[in-house]
C-alpha cells in the first residue's frame, strides 16, 4: 500500500459522499433517503481511517472517531426506521411529499 497516495483515497471518499448526496437530492422515498445518508456517513469514515493510517499510524484517534461515528449512525438508523414505520402507519405512505402537515 506504499504505492497509493493519500489523495486517491480521499478522491474515492469524495465520490462516495457526492453519490450519497445525489441520492438525497433525487429520492422521495424515506427509506432510500436513509440509505443515501448511510453512504455519506461511510465516506466520512473512510476519510478518518485513511488519515489515521497514513499520517499517524501509531495513534488510535482515527479509529476511535470512526467507531463512534458507526455507533451513532446505528442509533440514528434505528430511530429513523421507527419514525418511518410510524409515518407509514399514519399516512400509509413513506413518501416525503405526503407528510406535509408541518409545511408552511
Amino acid at each position, binding site marked *: *500500500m*506504499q*504505492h*497509493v*497516495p*493519500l*489523495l*486517491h*483515497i*480521499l*478522491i*474515492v471518499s*469524495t465520490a*462516495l459522499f*457526492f*453519490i*450519497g*448526496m*445525489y441520492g438525497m*437530492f*433525487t*429520492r422521495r*422515498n424515506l*427509506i*432510500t433517503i*436513509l*440509505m*443515501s445518508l*448511510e*453512504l455519506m456517513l*461511510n465516506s466520512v*469514515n*473512510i476519510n478518518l*481511517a485513511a488519515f489515521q*493510517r*497514513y499520517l499517524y*499510524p501509531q*495513534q*488510535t484517534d482515527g*479509529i*476511535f472517531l470512526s*467507531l*463512534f461515528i*458507526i*455507533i*451513532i449512525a*446505528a*442509533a440514528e*438508523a*434505528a*430511530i429513523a*426506521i*421507527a*419514525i*418511518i*414505520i*410510524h409515518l407509514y402507519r*399514519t*399516512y400509509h405512505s413513506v413518501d416525503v411529499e405526503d407528510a406535509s*402537515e408541518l409545511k408552511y
Partner: protein
Amino acid sequence: MMPASAIAFYLIAAFLLITALLSVTGRQIFRSAIWLLFSLLGVAAIYFWLELNLLAAVQIVVYVGGIVVLIIFSVFLTRGSVQELPTLKKSRHFFALLAVISGFLFTVWCLWLYGYRQKATDAVVADIRTVGKQMLSIEAGGYALPFEMVSILLLASMVACIAIAMKLPDSKTTNTLK
C-alpha cells in the same frame, strides 16, 4: 507495472463506487438495499486494505449485519418493495446532477491544490489490544467518557424507538392525524 496492492485498491474502489451508484439510482427499493449491502462490504474491504482490522470487523457487524437488515425489514414492513419508485422530473435530475458534479469537482480541486502526496509508512498499526485499553482508560488520551456517553445514547435511542413505534390504544389514535 502496478504492484498488486495498488491494483487491489483500485478494484475495491471501483466496486464500491459502482455498487453505490446502482444503490442510489435503482428503481426497485429492495434491489437498491442489496446494492447498499455490497457497497458497505466494499467500505469494509477498504478498511482491511488499510490494515485497520478492528474497524473492518465493526463495519461488517454493525452495518452489514445490523443496519442493512433493519432497512430490509422496514422495506418489507412498509410494502415499498412491490411498487417501483416513481421517476422524477427531468429538470430535477438535471439540477441534482449539476450540484453534485460541481461540488465533486470543487472538492477534488481543493484536495489537489493542498497536495496530500503522503505515502503510507511501514510503521506497525496500533493493534486491537491498544485500542481496547485506550477505550476504557481514564488517563489523558483515554476514551472512557465518550464510551459511557455512547452507551447512554444507545439506551436512550432504544427507549425512543420503543416509544415511537409503539402502537397506541384505539382511544388515543383518534387524536392523531387522519
